């Protein structure tokens, strides 16, 4: 063997060794399915992973996967399905008995072994999720004196909840009881069709009392966090990402299957940064910046990846009915009738939104009336009729349009809101000759301004997103006079009738009758009194790489356990 040849052979051998080693590490990498979602969290850090304190979509997105609730809303049909439990309800609709999935262990990610492990109790036995863990979570949310917003929402629905929340009754008197290890009983204050949906919300998730006792308000940090769902928390780099890891101990059910994707990395990124990652192939799911929408639509590959679907929010203008000239319903109706919603969507918003003529999202809420089904109730866009109404008002007061009090339209600082306001300002100027003045305020200041009948301007921008998929959450929770904070000063007979209607609808069990009641309530709010101008229903936009198989949720959160990713197809 010559020297040269020997060197060649040995080099080849080394190369083969290196390559085969590299190949084996590549297969190990490929064996693991990792999804990078740059859409779920947005640009700022997740505020909390405490189910009692969570109020925003990103906190809830993580929790819905790590600590599923008693019930679970189907992301497509929006039907309330069994989550961690199935349930039965007593004949009077007041007592709910939940049978919890037996022997689902609490788990925790161990960074040293890089594996999800079962949590053991002091005797070395696995800790299973029990009825008591759920009862503890509910008691903590309502009676924990934590300032829990959604604890307050739920308090109204659980026996003695309000008193416990306000501290006038001890937490032991709350209508929540663990009958045995896996049976939970919740007694409601009154029957309502949507109670299973409320009892499945995050403030009622099971919580690990032993961790909270040990770690105080730091218990949601990754070194302490424990969950039980299809995924659990692997890491949380504040301001950068949250990583979820598949829980191998999750048994899988019809509604919450065992996950296929091993790891889901939720990136905290600004819209345009998320799209850059998507285009570079370093993100599988991305947000859609409005500025890039035309470019995406024009691009063959990108437009394939674009998805536009419903979201849970409605965009409205509230009207302060105490301030002239909008203290007269004719002026308010004229304003609403001259907003060309479709033109606004086509020319300004461009995101496939739907025009709104009612406040409640007609596409995703239970018992929500569709404006098209109630033409006698919905406000119509009619410039001529609006002009006539305005003229009638002016004639009655004996003034000209110029003598009418000036109108202020206010929105919180945002380029998007500004564009909408300018477009509507122009519509009112062209159609009615009314020149409104636009004012903006920074968010914190703005909230203070519009939540007060004194300071709220004549017209102001507002948005509402659902907490649970029932119309009650829109009409009662925002506009019933007992809970209303929005500065619309609405207190005429229609407002009183509105209160009665939404109260009646709350306990009505017949779906059609409920829908009719809500339709009439919508009529009073958006047409007869025109205290709000519904403008459009938001859409959710996102981009998905072709190698991801997924469901598109119709509300704020995704169920990753139903997704799959083809790592081989990823370039």
């Amino acid at each position: 063997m010559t020297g040269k040849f020997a060197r060649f052979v040995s080099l080849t051998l080394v190369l083969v060794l290196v390559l085969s080693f590299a190949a084996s590490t590549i297969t190990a990498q490929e064996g693991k399915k990792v999804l990078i979602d740059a859409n779920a969290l947005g640009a700022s850090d997740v505020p909390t992973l405490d189910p009692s304190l969570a109020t925003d979509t990103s906190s809830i997105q993580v929790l819905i996967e790590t600590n599923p609730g008693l019930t679970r809303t189907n992301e497509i049909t929006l039907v309330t399905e069994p989550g961690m439990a199935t349930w039965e309800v007593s004949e009077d609709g007041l007592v709910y008995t939940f049978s919890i999935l037996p022997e689902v262990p609490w788990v925790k990610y161990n960074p040293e072994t890089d594996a999800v492990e079962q949590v053991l109790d002091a005797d070395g036995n696995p800790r299973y999720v029990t009825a008591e863990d759920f009862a503890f979570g509910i008691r903590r949310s309502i009676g924990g004196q934590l300032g829990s917003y959604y604890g307050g929402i739920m308090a109204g629905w659980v026996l003695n909840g309000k008193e416990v929340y306000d501290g006038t009754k001890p937490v032991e008197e709350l209508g929540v009881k663990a009958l045995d290890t896996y049976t939970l009983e919740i007694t409601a204050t009154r029957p309502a069709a949507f109670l299973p949906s409320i009892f499945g919300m995050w403030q009622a998730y099971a919580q690990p009392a032993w961790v909270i006792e040990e770690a105080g308000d730091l218990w949601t940090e990754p070194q302490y966090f424990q969950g039980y769902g299809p995924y659990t928390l692997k890491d949380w780099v504040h301001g950068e990402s949250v990583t979820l890891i598949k829980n191998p101990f999750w048994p899988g059910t019809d509604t919450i299957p065992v996950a296929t994707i091993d790891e889901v990395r939720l990136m905290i990124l600004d819209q345009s940064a998320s799209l850059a990652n998507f285009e570079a192939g370093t993100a599988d799911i991305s947000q859609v910046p409005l500025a890039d929408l035309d470019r995406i639509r024009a691009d063959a590959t990108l437009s394939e990846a674009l998805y536009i679907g419903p979201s849970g929010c409605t965009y409205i203008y509230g009207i302060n009915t105490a301030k002239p000239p909008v203290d007269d319903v004719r002026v308010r109706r004229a304003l609403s009738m001259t907003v060309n919603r479709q033109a606004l969507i086509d020319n300004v918003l461009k995101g496939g939104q739907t025009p709104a003529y009612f406040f409640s999202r007609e596409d995703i809420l239970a018992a929500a009336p569709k404006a098209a089904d109630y033409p006698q109730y919905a406000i119509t866009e009619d410039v001529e009729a609006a002009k006539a109404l305005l003229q009638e008002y002016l004639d009655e007061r004996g003034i000209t349009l110029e003598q009418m009090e000036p109108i202020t339209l206010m929105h919180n600082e945002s380029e998007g809101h500004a564009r909408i306001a300018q477009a509507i300002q122009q519509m009112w100027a062209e159609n009615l000759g009314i020149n409104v003045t636009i004012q903006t305020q920074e968010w914190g200041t703005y909230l203070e301004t519009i939540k007060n009948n004194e300071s709220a301007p004549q017209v102001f921008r507002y948005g509402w997103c659902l907490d649970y998929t029932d119309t009650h959450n829109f009409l009662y929770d925002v506009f019933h006079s007992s809970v209303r904070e929005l500065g619309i000063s609405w207190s005429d007979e229609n407002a009183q009738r509105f209160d009665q209607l939404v109260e009646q609808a709350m306990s009505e069990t017949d779906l059609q009758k409920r829908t009719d009641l809500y339709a009439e309530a919508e009529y009073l709010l958006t047409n007869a009194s025109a205290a709000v101008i519904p403008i459009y229903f938001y859409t959710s936009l996102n981009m998905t790489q072709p190698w991801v198989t997924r469901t598109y949720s119709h509300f704020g959160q995704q169920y990753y356990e139903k997704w799959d990713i083809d790592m081989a197809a990823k370039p």
Partner: protein
Amino acid sequence: MGRYIVRRLLQMFLVLFVVSLLTFATMRAVPGGPFSTEKNLPPRALAQLEAKYNLDEPLYMQYLHYMGDIAIPRLTENRLPPSVLNDYLINIYIPGIDKTLRWMNFGPSYKSVSQTVNSIIKNTLPVSATLGTGALIVAVFIGIPAGIIAALKRNTRWDYAAMSVAIIGVSVPVIISGPILRYVFGVQLKWLPPTGWGSFEHMIMPAFALGFAESARLARLTRASLLQVLNEDYIRTARAKGLHERIVIGVHALKNAMIPVVTTLGPLFAFLATGSFVAELIFGIPGMGKFFVVSITNRDYPVIMGTTLLLATFVILANLFVDLVYVWLDPRIQYS
């Protein structure tokens, strides 16, 4: 010199006290509060949150409480219950009495519920300071040589080229150059990761985007200052002595011309090191700038106070450092 430094450090505490008072007064004068949202928080919940964070006390008490937690050391048990309310920056175990001396509790964040100002700064300051240092290096290594070349080759093609680049740098802010860099090198060429943090590669684009804008300012300053110095008598003397031109420029002119440049470098580093909101957003960097800006929108009072005080400390220390460098640059300057 030692006494001078001590005096300056004592002055620093006075300045920080004034900064804290002004910041506190301004942020509490602004309408809106940390717990207002578009939803209706029940009054009971608001009361509970305000009680947790001492916001139900009169304003002057809140301020005293806050400053007390920072300034006054306290002796405590060795193991405190884990809580965002008792996260101290300095914890010294005292063996004799088996207690722990703790100091500097900058308070919890209202918005990031499981975080404290101390933990936010511990997590984000190293990121921002690394990026800031990188940006400063880019700025200095591009800006100063460009300024020198422009001054020495005054009114030549070199000068015009260097100053044109400088004008581009000054007039194209990070909010423009950042996305362009990201698109070209991250999306199209795929040479660098478009966003993220954790490796040297992640740092290249943001450090360049931030540094380039600043380098332009430095270049213009260096050029102007050097041109002025080159007209001084002692430069003529140095040349008349027959010194080599390289020594005239390198030792005599440049050292003196650096004084205004160094003056701007101090505060520049302070601002770069405490985070750039825009660069962090564009390049998805978990730095301090983001928390700083978001805390203002959220009325997250302790985070606003903590980050402002930190920035103020950085500016004061950087200025002190600059003043000390003067002594070396210009022998006529002395502190006693």
